[in-house]
């Protein structure tokens, strides 16, 4: 049903333009579905009337897969009849933190073992066949008014919590309110931005939830259904706790009761999470087969990369974990390929980007845009990509290449274009001289210890090409968080989160310090915030793409607040007998439920 449903609410690129085609694809059975069908005449019509314009052209290249190398052959979908049963062993990375509360943590750690229990997304979720669109989740359909301010979701019948209680519209409304408003003693969710410019939520007709927004949001579902926004808070268990005064009750405190395909068997902290089939799971596959197929999954936690790789090679693991620090190195993939041949699949998962940021809120050598631009021009992004992950990592500005939001011509930008490399470096030296540093300068590069190699490379390149001495200041995660969030740096090696597939994902990492957010480069530029206001109101994908591309150019080219270098690729491995494994293309946290994964052995 999922794969056939094709209730794309977002038609990207040319797809949007060809409205009729879309309507056909939506199928007659599910009438209230796609946004464009409900679209008010004016904006969408004009958009549709200007099809395949210059702005639309780049978005044609909607990626179906990340760039793949020979090393990474994605197994073709099997036509075999799925088998029921079996327990897979798939490594997680570390213990989920924050009491497994998705309102507090967005880490892969919490999602890998969490999504089997809670499912992906909430009322809506990422489509399996189009990662840039949203499909029905716990809501089977939805409706929107012509102003895109009132969204009504019809809750699916027959959804049960793992303890047997039916999932209701009241549950959904309670969760939305808790996320957006919090309660006395409990802050709103960290995912509150996913709910847009929220006004109210109410239950209508008994089984519908209506969300009213203050401003129009044609792309609302993209935000709402972001993979980090998981519905994991059972009202019937948590509300009594909150009334008792335990305002910050977390899913773990109420024994992790979800609506997902698997229910929790046991969670041994520090060691493993085990989940087993939930027989009354609501979802069926395209051919009407009851999901999930597997009897369960065991997630061993906290194994370092080398232990995971070794355990995979000796057959103790059917799959390895996702995320930084534990991904497979190219050399490890090569060795394992020799051992397994087609017996194992390696997934080129993209988990953000590698970049360096500047602090604009305090005076330093980097206050001068010439200096920032000089640094940006000096780096050979292709070479950096090759070092971080040969064949897979790719130079990028803010957005993933292949997404509709990326500037289609970014590879011709100065600093990106291999053809102008020497010219760019000469220009970098000229700029630096013009800024008053003909012989370079000394600075400090604040570096998270996990990203040491990036820092060493950057410092080496700066020394080599610009005579800039960047002393590497190595700090641990908690210190890094503090210095980053309080803007205590001039030049910092960033985590992965500046770069993403969606503008909404990027937002909290790039907005100004005025918003109080913990940005990944620190600045007071309200112009950056303004882009996001415009994005929220954009009616069409083209319009959105245009704004996002402007934003990207503004940050990377014009102001050079951030030097983005390359995608951060974190491959994981699965044995080939695990069928239907999917990899999040727009977000590494997509498709972790493993609901339709089955064991062919």
């Amino acid at each position, binding site marked *: 049903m999922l794969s056939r449903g094709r209730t794309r609410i977002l038609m990207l690129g040319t797809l949007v333009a060809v409205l009729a085609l879309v309507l056909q694809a939506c199928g007659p059975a599910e009438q209230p579905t796609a946004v464009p069908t409900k679209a008010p005449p004016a904006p969408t019509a004009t958009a549709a009337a200007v099809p395949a314009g210059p702005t639309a052209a780049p978005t044609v290249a909607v990626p179906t897969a990340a760039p793949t190398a020979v090393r990474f052959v994605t197994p073709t979908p099997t036509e075999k009849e799925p088998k029921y049963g079996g327990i897979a062993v798939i490594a997680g990375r570390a213990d989920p933190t924050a009491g497994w509360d998705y309102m507090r943590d967005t880490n892969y750690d919490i999602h890998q073992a969490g999504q089997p229990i809670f499912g992906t997304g909430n009322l809506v979720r990422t489509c399996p066949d189009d990662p840039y669109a949203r499909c029905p989740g716990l809501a089977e359909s939805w409706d929107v008014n012509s102003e895109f301010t009132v969204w009504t979701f019809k809750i699916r019948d027959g959804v049960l919590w793992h303890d047997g209680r039916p999932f209701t519209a009241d549950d959904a409304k309670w969760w939305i309110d808790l996320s957006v408003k919090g309660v006395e003693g409990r802050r709103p969710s960290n995912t509150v931005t996913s709910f847009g410019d929220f006004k109210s939520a109410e239950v209508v007709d008994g089984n519908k939830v209506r969300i009213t927004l203050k401003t129009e949001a044609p792309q609302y579902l993209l935000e709402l259904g972001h993979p980090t926004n998981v519905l994991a808070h059972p009202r019937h268990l948590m509300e009594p706790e909150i009334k008792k005064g335990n305002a910050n009750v977390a899913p773990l405190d109420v024994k992790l009761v979800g609506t997902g395909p698997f229910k929790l068997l046991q969670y041994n902290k520090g060691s493993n999470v085990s989940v087993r089939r939930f027989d009354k799971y609501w979802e069926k596959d395209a051919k009407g087969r009851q999901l999930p197929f597997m009897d369960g999954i065991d997630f061993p936690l906290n194994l370092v*990369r*080398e232990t995971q*790789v070794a355990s995979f090679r000796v057959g103790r693991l059917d799959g390895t974990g996702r995320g930084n620090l534990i991904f497979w*190195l190219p*050399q*490890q993939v*090569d*060795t394992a390929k020799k051992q397994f041949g087609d017996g194992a699949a390696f997934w080129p998962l993209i988990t953000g980007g590698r970049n360096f940021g500047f602090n604009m809120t305090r005076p330093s050598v980097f206050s001068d845009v010439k200096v920032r631009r000089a640094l940006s021009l000096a780096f050979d992004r292709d*070479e950096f990509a*090759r*070092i971080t992950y040969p064949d897979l990592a790719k130079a990028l500005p803010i957005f993933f290449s292949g997404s509709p939001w990326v500037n289609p011509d970014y590879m011709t930008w100065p600093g990106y274009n291999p053809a102008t490399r020497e010219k760019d470096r000469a220009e970098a030296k000229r700029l630096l001289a013009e800024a008053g540093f003909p012989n370079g300068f000394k600075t400090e590069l604040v570096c998270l*210890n*996990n990203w*040491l*190699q990036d*820092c*060493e*490379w950057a*410092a*080496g*390149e700066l*020394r*080599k090409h610009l005579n800039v001495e960047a002393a*590497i*200041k*190595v*700090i*641990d995660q908690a*210190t890094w968080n503090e210095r980053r969030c309080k803007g205590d740096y001039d030049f910092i090696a960033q985590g992965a989160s500046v770069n993403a597939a969606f503008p909404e994902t990027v937002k909290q990492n790039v907005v100004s310090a005025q918003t109080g957010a913990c940005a990944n480069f620190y600045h007071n530029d309200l112009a950056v915030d303004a882009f996001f206001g415009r994005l929220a109101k954009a009616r069409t994908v083209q319009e959105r793409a245009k704004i996002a591309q402007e934003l990207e150019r503004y940050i990377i080219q014009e102001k050079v607040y951030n030097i983005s270098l390359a995608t951060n690729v974190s491959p994981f491995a699965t044995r080939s007998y695990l069928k239907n494994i999917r990899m999040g293309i727009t977000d590494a946290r997509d498709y972790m439920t493993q609901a339709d994964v089955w064991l062919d052995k």
Partner: protein
Amino acid sequence: MAKIGVVRAGVGLRAKRGWTWRVWVFCRKKPLGALGAVLLILMAFTAIFADALENYDPLYQDTPKQLTAPGREFWFGSDVLGRDVYSRVIHGSRVSLYVGLMAVLISTAIGTTVGVASAYFGGWLDLGIQRVIDALQGIPGLVLALALVVALGASLNNVTIAIAIAYIPRVTRIARAQALSVIQEDYVLAARAVGARAARIIFRHVTINSLTPVIVVAAGLLGNAIVTEAALSFLGLGVPPPFPSWGQMLQAGARGYQEAAPWLTIFPGLALTVGVFGFNLFGDALRDTLDPRLRGR
């Protein structure tokens, strides 16, 4: 007894044969110790003349040539960033020697003083000092060093200081335990009885005679400090770049490249092993030589 040894070594001969002869005797009697001394001299030589011995700038990254196997161009291969492992190992000796020597010097100086004084004076002073040392000792060394590096910030000197502090209780306890024994010896009692000054007794008798186990431990710690720096590197908080430390190189190689690029671990690992080997062998020989009761045997 000690005197007999000196006589047998030949007071009269010493003038004629000079130090070369004595070195020869040392090598004959303590071949392992001599080996240790040679290794240490080699290491010191490497550290001092690193700039002359290097093939390339240890920081120069030739990324297109990353992960080259050992060969004519890169004797020990190249690392992920295309830097010459040989040159880095050579320069790494500076960092490792520095960390080892300074950390042990600091901890031994403080530890011995505190330990002996504590044992000699006894009473409330001993009581107080021992509580502090016990308390410090209770915190596992690596955890203590790690916390200190995080608190002070990772730098060459801070890593050294953190390691030194973590070693102080160990030295102090050994020094004190030995000093307690020594104080009961007749010659100390005698010195006290004739009314020798405390400082004189402490240094001439107690400290000197308590040194044996301290030196054994310190010699072990010399190597151990280098290994601890490697462990801190593994946890991401060792000596930071640009200083190439053996520990940092070893951990970078051991994480994922052990099979595909073994030269990344073998050469720094070998250097580290040889260094620690030298420190320990030499320390053993030093112990035998320094101990007044063993002198000349």
